[in-house]
Structure formats: C-alpha cells, structure tokens
C-alpha cells in the first residue's frame, strides 16, 4: 500500500465511521424521551442545582462522575424523601459521622434536587445497577427468620442501619442496640422517633401495626 492510499484510507474510513456514529446518535435522540419520564420544571430546576453545587465532583450519577461518594441514580428508591431532604440540607444532623459537607442547600433547592433524583431513578438504564447477585443467592438458602427479622427485612431497615457488618451507614449501627435501649424506648421510638430524638431523620413506623412493632422490638432487644 502506498502512503497516499494509507492516508486516504485513514481520512475516508474515519469519515465513514463518523457518519454511522452520527446516524446512530440521531436514532438514539429520537428514542431517549420514551425511556424516561417527562421532565417537569421542578426536575429541570433540580438538575440546575445539581450542577450548581458540583455534586458530580464527589458522586456518580448513572455511574459517571467521581468515586468518592455513593451513586445517586436510584437513591430515591432506597431512602424516603423527608430523610433525603434533611440530609441534603445538613448531613451531620442526620449522621454525625457524615463526610458530605453542609453546602448551604435551601429548602426549595432540596425539593428540586429530590424531584430530579426521582426522575433519574425512573430512567430505563438497561437494568443498571444490577441486583447484588451473591446476596440474592445467599437469600435463597437463608435459615429460618424470626418474625422480627422478617419485619426488619420487609421494611428495608438495612438501607440505613447495619447489623453485624451488613447494611447502610447513615443511621446508627444496631448490632448491640439491645444493650443500649430498653423495650419502651424502642417501641415508642418506632412510633414517633422525633419525640425521643429531636430532629431525628428516621421515618416513623407507627403505620405498620402493633404486632409487627412488637416483633421488631423483640428483635431489637435481642441484639446485645
């Protein structure tokens, strides 16, 4: 092959692939709106706030960004909105050990951000992030659960709390909570956390029924 032929192959080959890429881009652009919910004013305002505070300088979203803090794609599926709002406005008021700084986010900005994060959580991401495959496999073979453990699981307490190394880190570790709190405190706290802990960011569980709350309390008390 002569140098000239090699050069022409480079130039026209690149153009050829670029044209295909542009065609795929046009096709994709036509399909994106159907793969995500409609963008309201609030969602857009939330996206602007996301950029304003450079959240992507610490977090990933849709898996892209920085690897210093958890991914935000599906965060509203995992955490209730009141909790998120309080965390955004003052992380350390939720979790004294939080390393996210207090950025000065206003109440309105927090609402907008949550609308935006709720939007991303409903984008069709071809199944990302995947369900943890080993956890699912272990769940099938798990030993008989007590009634309290079943409530703990169905209410997703582990999104915020850790027991023996498994679970979230934003609420206190519950591994030994039974030696710290008594039955009345735990039961009352489930019904209305704020009367026991001022400014508590834990959601109230008054709605789940007396029996379930009793089972849950039994379980907590057993954690010594």
């Amino acid at each position, binding site marked *: 092959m002569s140098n000239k032929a090699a050069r022409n192959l480079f130039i026209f080959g690149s153009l050829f*692939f*670029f044209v295909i890429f542009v065609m795929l881009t046009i096709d*994709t652009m036509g399909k994106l709106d159907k793969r995500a919910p409609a963008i309201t004013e609030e969602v857009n305002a939330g996206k602007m706030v996301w950029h304003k505070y*450079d959240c992507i300088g610490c977090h990933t979203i849709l898996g892209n960004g*920085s690897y210093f803090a958890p991914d935000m794609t599906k965060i509203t599926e995992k955490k209730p909105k009141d909790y998120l709002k309080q965390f955004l406005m003052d992380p350390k008021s939720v979790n004294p050990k939080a390393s996210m700084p207090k950025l000065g986010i206003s109440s309105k900005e927090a609402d907008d951000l949550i609308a935006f994060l709720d939007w991303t959580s409903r*984008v069709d991401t071809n199944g990302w992030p995947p369900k*943890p495959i080993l956890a699912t496999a272990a769940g099938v073979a798990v030993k008989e659960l007590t009634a309290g453990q079943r409530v703990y699981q169905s209410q997703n307490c582990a999104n915020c709390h850790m027991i023996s190394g*498994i679970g979230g880190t934003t609420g206190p570790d519950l591994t030994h909570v039974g030696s710290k709190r008594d039955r009345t405190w735990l039961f009352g706290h489930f019904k209305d956390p704020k009367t026991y802990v001022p400014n508590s960011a834990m959601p109230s569980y008054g709605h789940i029924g007396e029996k379930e709350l009793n089972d849950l309390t039994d379980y907590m008390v057993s954690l010594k």
Partner: protein
Amino acid sequence: MTIKYESQKIAQNFYTFAVLLFLVQVTVGIIAALQFMWPDFFILNFNIIRSLHINAMVVWLLVGMMGATYYVVPEESETEIWSLPLAKFQFWATVGTVLAVVLGYVYMGINPQANTLVFGTRLLNEGREYIEAPRWADILIVVSVLLFLLNNFMTMLKTKKWTGIQGTLLGGLTVLALMYLPGMFYTKSMVKDQFWWWWVVHLWVEGAWEVIAGALLAFMLMKVTGVKREVVEKWMYVEVGLVMFTGILGTGHHYYWIGTPSYWLWVGGIFSSLEPIPLLIMVWDAFRTTRETRVVTNKAGLYYTVAHAIFNFVGAGLWGVIHTLPQVNKWTHGTQITTAHGHLAFYGAYVLLVLAMIYITLPAIRGVKAFNASRAFQSFWWMTISMIFIVLTITGAGMVQTYMERLMGLDYVAVKTNYNLWFWILRAIFGVGFLYGVLIFVVDYFKLGKEPASAVAPAPEKA
C-alpha cells in the same frame, strides 16, 4: 541539536506553563488522596480539589501539545511561524483564562453560593466532570485554540509542504477543537447531558488526542532514530486510522447504562474491544524502529518515547479492555476500576508523550548538543514505579468494591471506610513517591542546558 527556526522557541513558553501545572496537578492529587481518609482535612472540599486535579491535568497536557505543535510545524514546513506575536498573545491569553478559572474554583470552594446563574449559565463552575470550566471560559478557550490553529495552518500555507506528520497533527487538533463544542450547551435531560458529555471526553482521549499522539510518535521516532519518513508515516496512517475506526463507535462503551437504547451494548462492546489493536501496533512500531537503528541521538528522549508507546497500550488498551465488555462493565461501571484505568491511561498515553516531546525538543531549543540524562532517568523511574503501584492499589480497591458492594450488596460507605482503607493509605504513600519524581523532572526541566555539569560543554550555536 539546534533549532532551525528562531520562532520554534515559543514552544518553551508552553512547556514551562505545562510543567508548572503538572506540579500543581500532582500536589492536589495527594490532597485528594488524603481526603479519602480525612474528608475535612483541607479548606477546600474534595470536589473542588478533584476538579483542580483533573482540570490542571487536561490543561497542561493540551498546553504541552500546543508547545509541541509550535515546534513541529515550522520544522516540517521549513519556515518561521506565520505570526510570532499572535502565538505569544495566544499563550498569554491561555494563561490568563486558566488562572481566572482556577481562582473561580477556589472561590466557589470557600463559598458555594457564589456559583450563581449569569445569562443562564454558571458563573464559576459548570458542575460537569472534566468540563467544569464555566461557559465564558469555554468561549475564551475556543478562541485561543482557533487562533492557535489559524497560526499553524498559515505557517503550513507559507511553504505548502504538506507532510503526513503535520497534516495528521493538525487534523487531530482540529477534531479536538470541534469535539469541545458538544460540551457547550445545556440540556434539560441528564441522559442527553451525559450522552453529549461523552462525545467530548471519549472522542478526545480515544479519538483526537490519540491521533495527535500517533503523529507526534512518528515525529519523535524520526528525530531520535533517523528512520525514513516514508516508513514512519505509513505506519502512522495505519495506527491513527485504526484508532478512529475502532474509537468512534467505541464511544458506545459509555452508552450501556445511561438511559440509551440497548443496541449500544453491541456497538460499544464490539468496537471498543478492538481499540487496543492500534495501540499495540504503536508499541511494535516503536520497537521495530529502535531496533533498526544504531545511532540514537537522544537517549532520554527515546526512552520516554518507547515508554509512552508501552504504557499507552497497557493503561488505555489493557486496563481499558478489561472492563469494556457490557457483561463486565455492568458490575464495574463507576467503581475504582475506572479510576485505576483513568490514571494509567492518562499517564502512559499523554503524560509520557508530552514529557518525551519536551526531552526531544528542549535540548535543541536551549541549543545544547548533549545533556546529562541521569535526572531524566531518575524521574522516569520514580514516576513510573509509583504510578504502577498507585494503579495496582486502586485496582485492588476496585476489585474489593466490585465484589463487596456490587456482588454482595454491602453498603458503599462501609466498603470505602472499612475494607478499602489500606488501599487509600498505600495510594497516598505512592502518590508522594510520584511527586518526588515530578520534582526531579521539574528541576531537570529548568536546569537542562543551563549547567556545565554534563560531559559535553553546551554549544550555543545560533541557527
């Protein structure tokens, strides 16, 4: 070694600015590494430090490539630069813009509310990774790059010697300038935002920049080994051609999970898996050329050139291909595996490229026949070994993260603060080793040709 055209000396302005920013980049990199252990340890939050780290990196690499281009184009065109005052103006305009942007980041770090909305865009920081620079700075940067391109094209037009090397170099630079534009408009959809964002980021590092690297590699091999132009240029076309054929559609490896249609899993998976091939040809090219020649005029220069080719392949090619298939990327997407790859790829492909260009052209600019290369080798080994260990520790952290968080379902923060702690400590230690290597390089850069220490006395003949 002396320069043929006086105006080639302008390259040195760009090199000096690049070298200083390199020092800033690595210093703030160490602060970022320490913040993984102590998040509040510095006045500026992690996000600001990280923006400084990656922006300083992108800017110094670009500035280094600009310097290299101002050296190569007159040499290839066999004439002085079209307008030296324009080149100087373009240099100082770039310095001014960069400093203003940096001050803006620092100010925003102290007072996040200062990042207000002005004419619909952010005043200090756009809040988009790598292209954080606000819109007004984007526009100034584009103007500066256009002046730079104009100056070089006019230089080429003066003598109309269309060599393959400078044609490819300027072609790559033009695509680079064009591919900055998709990052310069706002979209309400985060999916579209990221779609266009990858046009900039991917089509830069795996398209335009890699073409520039191919052209500079050919130039450097020709300079240090004296190999025939026809041969290096032919292989250069093969390399940069394959870079584009695989890299353009390879962009699909970023469109797996961001809300884009699933056909990208096929397009991205297939084409990006082929991306290492041209990088491997570059390694082979460097070795073949070196083996065929006995007279090496610049040992340090050749060393850095060959190392660039090798680590371009290892960092971009190997560390890229391990997580590029959708079946793997589904689990590793957005983990420390990505950071590991990012570091080795940028180091191998572009840091070593710019340093190689500096070692090959600076002696001529400073008018020295030969120079003592011992510091060049020392800094090379300090930097390279430290970088290898940074990458290994972060790859380890990424494997632990992928296993525990993504496969077992443990909490992100728990994995980060408990299981990966030692990896962060080790990274910071090797980071200091890297900084030491950079310091040796900086000293060497400023002293090269200015001390009588080398065996051969400096011979400042005028061109």
